[in-house]
């Protein structure tokens, strides 16, 4: 039987506010345990939550960006469960009336566009952290994260493969960083994903029973976890078994999902409206003002790059994959206006390669947009060849100065003097009589050999196009 995969994702986005959702504690990552947990966060008796305006604004930004309905009135509810890193015994969340409803995100897999529905996005507070090691059978509780604002973004079960799920997740990841509402750091847990996975016979309308996968904290793991789970469910059903609705933990070391049965019985959260919090009401002005403050979004930017700079869809996609990358590109193009494509090539190739190699953010790159533009201008005006440019780029990366300084210092100016090149060619031909003889006898492949020798003799500084031309003329003369 042919099976179809059905995936829906729940993404927890940690909002980039300075303070918590309902208290004035700092949300900074990495502080000493429990130094950013105030009376509200640790649930001392008598405290009351007060809503952070910026968190509401960030939720609205996401809502606008995915074309969703922004509910002018939403309601906070208590989700009740007991766990030591949840001091109140309930999490403040939104249940029946979330702040954002019914949006969509366009994804693209192998050039095929697809719309993924977003059911809802609601505001809630994060829990603390439990540390199970090192305490001799006890659990250590750090409440610094307790009360940090989260936006939980729930998709429709619209994805039909692990790859579509990853494409959606990446799209969302780019979007929240563009909007400046999340730093997207998956390692630190700022962007977390749970996946609801089921299978059904192809053609069947009704969904199969789903399993919820937790603990998938990288794009690669999302793909692998879903693929594993799909294979497990198919094998189970084909062997005469039944999928049970349950929560499963992904183990990246073993690449498998395991049942978390213990969580099952507690799945009764007894939601009710939080009596401590009045309904969250948004003035029309608040939503309008937020819409005005939105940056250009990735899709619009990508289309503009294709139009304005005559880039391929691929180039535009890569260059708009983050706001920093897009800003860097545009700054470089402003400084080298006629060389948009060449600039794109250098950013996607060399520049991104060095960033990855040294694990650097764009802001920390030693080669600024202006420096890159300086290099591109020298390639374009034939001062240097593309090959030498790589050498110069490396020198710039090692902080040896801008392109012009490196060219001067290292004497890398391209040799474009016709007679100089001809002299070198004569020299090369004289030194390689055997090859010249073979070339004459019809081994035309040796043309490349001569070009290589000339480039070597000039340490790569000869203009390759000119070398080709001159060599062709010379060899044309010696052919029988």
């Amino acid at each position, binding site marked *: 039987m042919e099976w179809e995969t059905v995936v829906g994702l729940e993404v927890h986005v940690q909002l980039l506010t300075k*303070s918590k959702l309902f208290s004035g504690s700092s949300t900074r990552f990495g502080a000493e*345990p429990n*130094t950013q947990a105030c009376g509200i966060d640790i649930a001392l008796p008598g405290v009351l939550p007060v809503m952070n*305006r910026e968190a509401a604004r960030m939720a609205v930004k996401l809502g606008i960006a995915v074309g969703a309905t922004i509910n002018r009135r939403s309601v906070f509810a208590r989700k009740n469960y*007991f766990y030591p890193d949840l001091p109140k015994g309930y999490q403040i969340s939104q249940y029946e009336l979330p702040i954002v409803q019914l949006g969509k995100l366009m994804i693209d897999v192998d050039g095929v566009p697809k719309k993924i529905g977003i059911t809802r996005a609601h505001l809630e507070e994060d829990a603390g952290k439990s540390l199970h090691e090192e305490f001799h059978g006890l*659990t250590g509780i750090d409440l610094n994260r307790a009360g940090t604002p989260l936006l939980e973004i729930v998709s429709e079960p619209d994805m039909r493969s692990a790859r579509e799920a990853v494409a959606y997740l990446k799209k969302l990841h780019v979007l929240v960083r563009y909007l400046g509402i999340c730093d997207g750091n998956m390692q630190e847990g700022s962007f977390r994903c749970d996946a609801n996975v089921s299978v059904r016979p192809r053609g069947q309308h009704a969904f199969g029973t789903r399993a919820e996968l937790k603990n998938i904290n990288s794009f690669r793991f999302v793909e692998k976890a879903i693929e594993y789970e799909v294979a497990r469910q198919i094998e189970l059903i084909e062997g005469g078994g039944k999928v049970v609705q349950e929560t499963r933990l992904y183990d990246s070391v073993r690449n498998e999902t395991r049942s978390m049965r213990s969580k099952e019985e507690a799945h009764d959260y007894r939601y009710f409206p939080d009596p401590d919090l009045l309904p969250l009401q948004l003035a029309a002005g608040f939503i309008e003002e937020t819409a005005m403050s939105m940056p250009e979004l990735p899709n619009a930017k990508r289309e503009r790059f294709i139009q304005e700079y005559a880039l391929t869809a691929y180039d535009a996609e890569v260059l708009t994959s983050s706001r920093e990358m897009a800003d860097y590109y545009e700054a470089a193009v402003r400084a080298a206006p006629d060389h948009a494509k060449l600039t794109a090539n250098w950013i996607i190739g060399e520049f991104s390669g060095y960033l990855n190699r040294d694990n650097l953010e764009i802001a920390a790159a030693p080669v600024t947009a202006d420096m890159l533009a300086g290099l591109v201008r020298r390639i374009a005006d034939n001062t240097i060849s593309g090959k030498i440019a790589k050498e110069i780029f490396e020198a710039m990366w090692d902080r040896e100065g801008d392109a012009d300084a490196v060219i001067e210092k290292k004497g890398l100016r391209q040799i474009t003097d016709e007679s100089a090149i001809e002299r070198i060619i004569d020299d090369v031909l004289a030194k390689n009589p055997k090859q010249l003889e073979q070339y004459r006898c019809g081994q035309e492949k040796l043309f490349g050999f001569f070009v290589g020798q000339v480039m070597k003799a000039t340490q790569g500084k000869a203009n390759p196009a000119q070398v080709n031309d001159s060599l062709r003329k010379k060899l044309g003369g010696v052919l029988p």
Partner: protein
Amino acid sequence: MSLDRADVERIAHLARLEVDEQELTAYAETLSRILGLIEQMNAVDTEGIAPMSHPLEAGLGFRADEVTEFDQRELFQVNAPSVQAGLYLVPKVIE
């Protein structure tokens, strides 16, 4: 709708409340009566009336996104039965 002893046991467990064996029947009865009252209210025709999630006719007040709290860990941890390396220690909760 009415609750039986097993329902009460389950609810008590969810709320982490200890309920005496002998009290179960009494709780089942009194809690069922509360549900009865809610059923009575449910039967009222509320067509066209907006649901009320809060008795006050007001919206939530906002605070500015500013850090206003400072570290009071030492003071708070005086109340904790066990702390180590700045962490609150509790009985192990993972299997």
